[in-house]
């Protein structure tokens, strides 16, 4: 039996996602805030935004161990693109969980949403995330100086993106 599986989040996952994102490692390296409320996650899970596609990864014993999101662009001339964000629970880092979730999100982007460009921002000292994104074809495009506040300092982030290389089916 597999150690984990991937599924869509459900409203009942609010408390588990609140717990995941209460770890400084997770909120600090994304753009989230300390002390996320249960209500915030309940609202997010209830929002049904057609531009937002979230996935989570659950262990064999039912724990939520990672969460990822794709936000499609709403402006028509940017609608071939989406932004990606993800977080993996501290104890599960370095065990292939991030790879599995990222692969699932890129499969969604490439083969089921038809996106051409997936981009993200990452703090430049987040070595594990950088290595993961590079492994799956993300390339650094820009260094955004002083882009986000983290633990009292305005830090640089790297903007990375991955372009779909294969043409849509039937194009040949």
């Amino acid at each position, binding site marked *: 039996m597999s150690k984990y599986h991937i599924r869509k989040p459900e409203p009942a996952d609010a408390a588990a996602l609140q717990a995941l994102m209460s770890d400084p490692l997770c909120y600090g390296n994304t*753009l989230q*805030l300390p002390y996320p409320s249960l209500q915030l996650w309940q609202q997010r899970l209830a929002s049904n935004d057609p531009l937002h596609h979230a996935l989570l990864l659950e262990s064999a014993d039912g724990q939520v161990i990672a969460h990822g999101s794709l936000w499609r662009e709403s*402006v*028509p*001339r*940017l609608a*071939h*693109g989406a932004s990606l964000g993800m977080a993996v629970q501290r104890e599960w880092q370095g065990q292939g969980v991030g790879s599995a979730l990222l692969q699932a999100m890129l499969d969604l982007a490439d083969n089921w949403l038809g996106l*051409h*460009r997936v*981009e993200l921002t990452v703090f430049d000292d987040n070595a594990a995330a950088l290595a993961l994104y590079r492994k799956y074809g993300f*390339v*650094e*495009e*820009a*260094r*955004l*100086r*002083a*882009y*986000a*506040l*983290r633990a009292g*300092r*305005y830090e640089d982030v790297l*903007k990375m*993106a991955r*372009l779909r290389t294969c043409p849509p089916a039937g194009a040949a």
Partner: protein
Amino acid sequence: MSFHIRRIEPDDAAAMAQLQSAPGVVRHTSQQPYQSVADWQHRLQHLPADNHWLVACTADGEVMASAGLNILPQVRCRHVADIFLVVRDEWQGKGVGRALLQALLDLSDNWLGLIRLELMAQQDNQRAIALYERFGFRHEGVVRQDILQDGCYVDSVVMARLHWPEGRQA
């Protein structure tokens, strides 16, 4: 040439629909070629408090250009805004864009206390890129196949200007 700068009003809807759908503006922004006045009325009547938009007008009230900044919604990026600047074709090269950009930077630095102003410019928009460079915006990278322009995905340059208020992190 005389013009004055003021904050945008809902009554500028017709002027904005015309300005933002002009071929030269559409090409170098993310705008669409056909725009309705009603859509602009709705947008300008509901402009969020984090959007600070200005227009430059001739002495007889014609809108020549518009510029604005939008503070980012993420709480940890509240010191950042993205900016735009559009000038009607017939008013290009007459100092209106420069004056509007100057007004926007004054608003940001001295009244809003923002630290980072950023923008994306299509790579063939050399006139805009040169203007931003003169005002201290630096190139931060190239975003590949960022935006649909005339049927093709084209690259954009990311530019940003940092301004540290006294006593804050440098």
